[in-house]
């Protein structure tokens, strides 16, 4: 089944070869990504096996800001990433188009939310769902990768340090989000508090309603006066 879903804009055929960078720069990026992804997959046997479902498929990612295009081809459990492909010869099965930040946020969403994601999608719905499932269950054993390079003892120490550091950063992020509002409103008084804004808006609504009533009453009086004048002229 082939479907076309559009989000913010009608899906279009971008101009050919629309990679803004030198091909050798693109080749360096794709080579690095390809090596990293395939290396990482060695530490996630579940995902490695699941890739079989997407064998011979092609996903095209068209980033509009910055202007870049990549093709992800899966063949025999190997993920190949290219910066160029002749789409007349090998049309992609799925095309995702959007800004880099919107595409990155797809990871957190689900495919039912494409309309709000800023990403347009064309292609085979079944393959898209498979990509989404595989991506959501990605579980790379990065600790094993560290152990392979540093040994079990040093690797374990480093893994613990990284996990502690990540937890601390997450806690700090949550605290900042919670306290920043209070700092801005109570301590520095740079912005009004939410309750103050609500009160202000409520007052505005009240004044607006009063004005509407006054306006209606005035119009009524003017119309009554006009009718009276017409009647008087009519009698004369």
């Amino acid at each position: 089944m082939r479907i076309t879903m559009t989000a913010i804009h009608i899906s279009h055929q971008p101009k050919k070869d629309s990679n803004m960078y030198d091909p050798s720069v693109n080749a360096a990026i794709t080579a690095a990504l390809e090596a990293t992804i395939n290396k990482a997959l060695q530490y996630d046997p579940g995902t490695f096996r699941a890739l079989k479902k997407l064998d011979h498929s092609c996903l095209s990612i068209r980033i509009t800001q910055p202007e870049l295009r990549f093709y992800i081809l899966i063949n025999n459990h190997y993920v190949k990433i290219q910066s160029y492909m002749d789409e007349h010869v090998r049309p992609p099965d799925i095309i995702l188009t959007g800004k880099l930040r919107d595409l990155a946020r797809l990871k957190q969403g689900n495919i039912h939310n494409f309309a709000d994601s800023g990403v347009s999608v064309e292609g085979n719905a079944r393959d898209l769902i498979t990509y989404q499932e595989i991506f959501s269950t990605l579980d790379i054993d990065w600790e094993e990768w560290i152990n392979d390079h540093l040994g079990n003892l040093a690797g374990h120490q480093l893994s613990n340090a990284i996990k502690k550091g990540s937890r601390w950063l997450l806690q700090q992020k949550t605290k900042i989000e919670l306290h920043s509002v209070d700092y801005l409103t109570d301590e520095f008084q740079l912005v009004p508090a939410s309750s103050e804004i609500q009160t202000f808006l409520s007052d505005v609504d009240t004044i607006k309603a009063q004005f509407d009533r006054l306006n209606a009453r005035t119009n009524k009086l003017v119309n009554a006066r006009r009718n009276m004048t017409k009647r008087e002229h009519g009698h004369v």
Partner: protein
Amino acid sequence: MRIITVPDEKTTHFGYEQVKTEEKAERVAGVFHSVAAKYDLMNDVMSGGIHRLWKRFTIEVSGVRNGDKVLDIAGGTGDLAAKFSKLVGPDGQVVLADINESMLRVGRDKLTDLGLVNNLYCTQADAQYLPFPDNSFDCITIAFGLRNVTDKELALKAMLRVLKPGGRLLVLEFSKPQNSLLEKAYDTYSFKLLPFMGKLITNDADSYRYLAESIRMHPDQETLKSLMESVGFGECKFYNMTGGIVALHKGIKP
């Protein structure tokens, strides 16, 4: 735009030197006999490894798939042929052709060591007189070899002949930098540093001086594209890489 001077019936260029036409092939052969053993190492040193990225892009543009027949001309030490062998699979075929026996030996041995023996064949052949039937190949590549060919037009005609209709020709070659500042830096690098590195690593400064000179004598991007079109290739285009230091030309046999 550079102008290609029509070679005198009796002389042509060997770098900046004018030599008899019939001598050029022998002089070029001498260069490559000399550099064959350390060719791959010198490629990495001279380009800082970037040649791998140029070749990677070439393979992407080639669109080679399972079952294709590919001819890699002047394939030398087999970089491209090795990659193509994996892409075409057991149903496809890759022919590595080079006029230079020393380069071919190095390439054949390297490919054998990699275990690429089932769908890969090596043959000594002159790009101007390709010993294959008409309409044989889905894709032909020639990487950093065309500038060494005596009669480029003759070679391009031969490639057109042995390509299948709809087949692709890819010419990866040094070209003219698109930025004058880069061009100056490139000239300094080519004429001062390259021969020095050649002397240091292979004890052969002259071969790498020829390399730099032969690049300057090669047609620029538009001229080569026009040449391909005049020979009969269609949909000709080129991609500049690394500021135009290298260009990849693509043409299709109608």
